[in-house]
């Protein structure tokens, strides 16, 4: 049976062909989805529920000791911290998804080499990775938002926009991280350093748990250049209101610029590593 089937010429619509760029990227997402369906429970736990632990511990537990005041905009600490925890979780997820998993595609599993042996190009592969990360973040963010809602962490429907902000901030961070992963040839020791010395300090000091006005003026620029601060400001603006349109535009522009620069760098290094 097999011989005959192998020689039989496929019908015209069954012929292999080159698909468009968006379609190619989407097929990569489809491949990931096939994998995700097998492993979604453990993934959803680590990406969606971890921020919830923070919300319970910080927002409800620690927050019970915090008086609403000027720093929290007169709101309860739970309301103050919930949108930022959404973004901070999203950024950590995004960076995690863009380090070892991407390096593995080049180095261990080598599935990137398999994908780019097909009509799919390295640029389309990268696009698929970014879309996939975005979808994962959207899912995790939604789960977080729904459960936080049960805790009474939201004031209104602005939370939907906050989830979008979280996804956008995460993807903006994922793009440059993928560029870093594509230029990593060792076992990825630098990823641990990035987590310890960039990501963790950013989560702690970029306006997630307290306003950056508490940071000494000389060091405040560190918060300004961190993508998470821009995301936090936008998410709070969306969930709680009170953000000036011009400031919002500035934050969006910063994240867009990070995404564009990171994406171009990643594209460059994906080609450099896969087309040699």
């Amino acid at each position, binding site marked *: 049976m097999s011989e005959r089937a*192998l020689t039989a010429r496929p019908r015209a619509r*069954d012929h*292999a062909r080159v*698909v468009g760029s968006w379609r190619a990227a989407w097929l990569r997402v*489809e*491949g990931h989805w096939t994998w995700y369906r097998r492993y979604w429970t453990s993934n959803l736990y680590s990406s969606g529920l971890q921020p919830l632990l923070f919300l319970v511990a910080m927002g409800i537990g620690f927050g019970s000791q915090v008086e609403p005041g000027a720093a929290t905009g007169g709101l309860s600490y739970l309301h103050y911290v919930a949108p930022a925890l959404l973004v901070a979780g999203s950024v950590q997820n995004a960076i995690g998804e863009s380090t070892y998993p991407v390096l593995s595609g080049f180095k261990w599993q080598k*599935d990137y080499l398999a994908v780019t042996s097909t*009509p799919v190009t390295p640029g389309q592969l990268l696009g698929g990775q970014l879309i996939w990360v975005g979808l994962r973040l959207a899912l995790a963010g939604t789960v977080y938002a729904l459960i936080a809602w049960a805790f009474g962490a939201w004031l209104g429907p602005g939370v939907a926009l906050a989830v979008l902000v979280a996804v956008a901030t995460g993807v903006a961070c994922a793009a440059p991280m993928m560029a870093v992963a594509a230029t990593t040839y060792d076992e990825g020791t630098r990823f641990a350093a990035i987590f310890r010395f960039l990501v963790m300090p950013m989560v702690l000091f970029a306006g997630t748990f307290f306003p950056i006005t508490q940071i000494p003026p000389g060091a405040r620029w560190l918060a300004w250049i961190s993508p998470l601060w821009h995301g936090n400001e936008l998410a709070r603006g969306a969930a709680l209101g009170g953000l000036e349109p011009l400031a919002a535009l500035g934050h969006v522009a910063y994240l867009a610029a990070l995404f564009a620069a990171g994406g171009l760098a990643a594209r460059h290094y994906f080609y450099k590593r896969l*087309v040699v």
Partner: protein
Amino acid sequence: MVEAKALAKRFGEFEAVRGIDVHVRRGEAFGFLGPNGAGKSSTMRMIASVSPRSDGELKVLGMDPDREGPRIRARLGVVPQQDNLDTELTVRQNLHVYGRYFGLSRARVRAKAEELMEFAQLTDRADDEVDSLSGGMKRRLTIARSLVNDPDLLLLDEPTTGLDPQARHLLWDRLFRLKTTGVTLIITTHYMDEAEQLCDRLVVMDGGRIAAEGSPSELIARYSTREVLELRFPPGEQEPAVERVTDLAERVEVLPDRLLLYTAAGEAALEQAHARGLRPASSLVRRSTLEDVFLRLTGRSLVE
């Protein structure tokens, strides 16, 4: 199918491929035989349209890989040296996901996957994770995966390296069946038995250059004798024996552990050696192989 002229590949200062001419015809099994580092894989990657050439001309399926890479790749099957299967997916899922990259419909990849699993004798492992397969099974799955788009040209880079003899023979059988269905094969290998088994025509590569070209039997006829007499001596006795046997053969190769006497009549040469009082620890008369061709052309063994 493939047309290369003065094809070259450089990595910085290092010249992996130093100007080779290759012409692969439709329906044949074409081999690149050579030791590790001969430039075989670099050549394969250029043909696979994932590695731009540094110099020379290259046409694959009538197209230029630099400009029409995706269109070429749509019609190629690629079996890389190292398996790059998705180890966390099942056998079937690997075929489904990969087939979709070629723009095939879901229905098409589903049907094709069943057919290919049968061909690769993996049907009973269809829903097992790739991680749990043996090396030979993974290799067969990689080959099955490379056929998902009904390729016009199949590229196999060291298809059986690292497999046990039984797994190799099973794989050769599958490749031979493919060949009979008219698929054009290009194979790199550093195993001469593999080249002899599978290739209609091959080039011997060494140091980025082509040392010889022809069918296995042509190459053996041109560069070696019909038979080879192998003589093993106890330690220390090989060196004095060399000059006493030189006139018994057309050519004598001195390997670290044995002497190879190239002659049309091996048994006769062995009798003469015995008549001269030589007492080798063991002797063997065999037919010439591509290994002998390679030794003649480069002065080195294929597998070192």
